[in-house]
């Protein structure tokens, strides 16, 4: 019984001499930095805005490079020039018109690609034989330069709205299928078993297990798909169009107006980022259980 007393007094002395300090915490944080799945506290402004900050740094470096004259200005614009020209074009309404034109094509096409891509991906991941049967086509379509399909698309659906929608669709759908399929295949089999035991129908298992369980992969598929679809719509507009941001870029490029080319690219990129972040927002809402 003696030994306990010693220990307790030792504990006392430790305890009274060192008041709880914040050091303990920062030590633990050093450690937590390595590896995912660790909880983040209010590490404050820096961490939360690190993305925005790096963007600012990169833009500053770019501007400086431009001003230093190291790069021939007929090939490179600068952030400030882009903003200036972009502002003018926004004022005149040119940019908005083209943007709306592109967005129209994009949303219909990508919406279809997302819905169908997720659906087919889930199916292919779920029913292995189906996945195996369609796998060669998936690979084939992922590897086919969509450009060479343009004439066929034109022949089938003409050059109107629907042709652009189709291009956007074809561009975006395959990465979505692939990622969704991978997500489903890597589900924890225990969980699908649970669903079965609770009498879930195939569709219910699909909705309650496959969909939430593969959500992270689906979102990453959507991100790749968004990129591809954007490339698709821009490329289509560059080759066959009467409007849209792609048309704007092609036109500006043929006129060697590099500022306008960059404005176009930036608009495209911002568009892509806006759409991506809304997808991410969706993910965060749906994946509440994953803290971070």
């Amino acid at each position, binding site marked *: 019984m003696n030994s306990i007393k010693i220990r307790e007094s030792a504990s006392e002395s430790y305890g009274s001499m060192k008041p709880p300090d914040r050091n303990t915490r920062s030590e633990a944080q050093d450690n937590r930095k390595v590896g995912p799945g660790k909880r983040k506290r209010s590490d404050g402004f820096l961490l939360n805005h690190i993305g925005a900050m790096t963007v600012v740094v990169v833009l500053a470096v770019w501007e400086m490079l431009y001003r230093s004259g190291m790069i021939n200005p007929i090939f490179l614009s600068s952030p400030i020039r882009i903003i200036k020209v972009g502002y003018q074009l926004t004022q005149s309404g040119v940019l908005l018109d083209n943007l709306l034109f592109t967005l129209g094509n994009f949303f219909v096409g990508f919406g279809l690609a997302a819905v169908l891509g997720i659906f087919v991906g889930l199916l292919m991941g779920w029913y292995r034989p189906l996945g195996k049967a369609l796998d060669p086509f998936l690979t084939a379509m992922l590897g086919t330069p969509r450009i060479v399909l343009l004439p066929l698309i034109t022949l089938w659906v003409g050059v109107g709205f629907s042709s652009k929608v189709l291009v956007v669709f074809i561009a975006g759908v395959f990465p979505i299928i692939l990622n969704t399929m991978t997500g489903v295949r890597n589900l924890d089999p225990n*969980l699908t078993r*649970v669903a079965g035991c*609770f*009498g879930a*129908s195939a569709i219910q298992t699909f909705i309650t297990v496959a969909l939430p369980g593969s*959500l992270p992969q689906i979102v990453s598929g959507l991100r790749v798909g968004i990129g591809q679809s954007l490339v698709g719509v821009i490329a289509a507009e560059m080759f066959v169009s009467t409007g849209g941001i792609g048309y704007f870029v092609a036109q500006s490029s043929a006129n060697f107006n590099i500022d306008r080319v960059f404005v176009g690219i930036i608009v495209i990129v911002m568009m892509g980022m806006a759409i991506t972040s809304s997808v991410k927002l969706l993910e965060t809402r749906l994946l509440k*259980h994953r803290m971070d």
Partner: protein
Amino acid sequence: MTVLAKLHTDNVSITYPLKNGEEITAVSGFNMTVNEGEFVCIVGPSGCGKSTMLGAIAGIQHVSNGKIYLNGQPIKGTGRDRGVVFQQASLFPWRTSLENVVYGLELAGVPKNERMAKGRELLKLVGLEAFEHHYPNQLSGGMQQRVNVARALAIEPSLMLLDEPLGALDAQTREFMQLELLRIWKETKQTIIFVTHDIGEAVYLSDRVVVMTARPGTVCETVDIHLPRPRPLEIKRSPEFLEYEKHIWGLIVSEKEREKQRMKIITL
């Protein structure tokens, strides 16, 4: 004497394929009959095929040989008539405790208000009413297991399959849960098959204890537990109880010895 068995396993064998093309026999010639409303425990050495057998009854485990009859019909896949508590953690990580508990009810189309009320009731039963909005990764091991049990209870299946459901609980919570389980069993007149590695628990709960041999698992002996019900906790200190415990213990130990012999042959 024409009692229709609730469950009947007829010479069931289960093998798993191995990488090298060979097979490993987990369960071999397993025969067991469980009558309507019985509480049966299965005990046996680690790795003897208890989970495998339970999986087969649940309909998620492919049977290589033999048949399993439920209410006289051969089992075809899974079904809502059987509730399962898995040994491994199997809560949906993207659902809160409450959402996990009501999962089966949701599938069955029970209206939201109703199922939430029922879910809360069950969470209270397992002592987790304060944790309904917690996700599984925010619960301790024992808490997760209790949610697991609540989830299976929610659908009120006529046959409950429980695979070491109380294994991660402290002794007191465990006794409490045992009492609750018996109460529910009595009320609902369910049939329960319960896998445990705690012989005392098996004797305390069951009408019968099925003792399995080591792998390839088969029934070594079925011990009927003739203890009166309801059983107060004190019964665990009664001489009859201790006698049952000792008997089963003896069965498993001698089984172990035999297993060791077999092992030597396998590893040759």
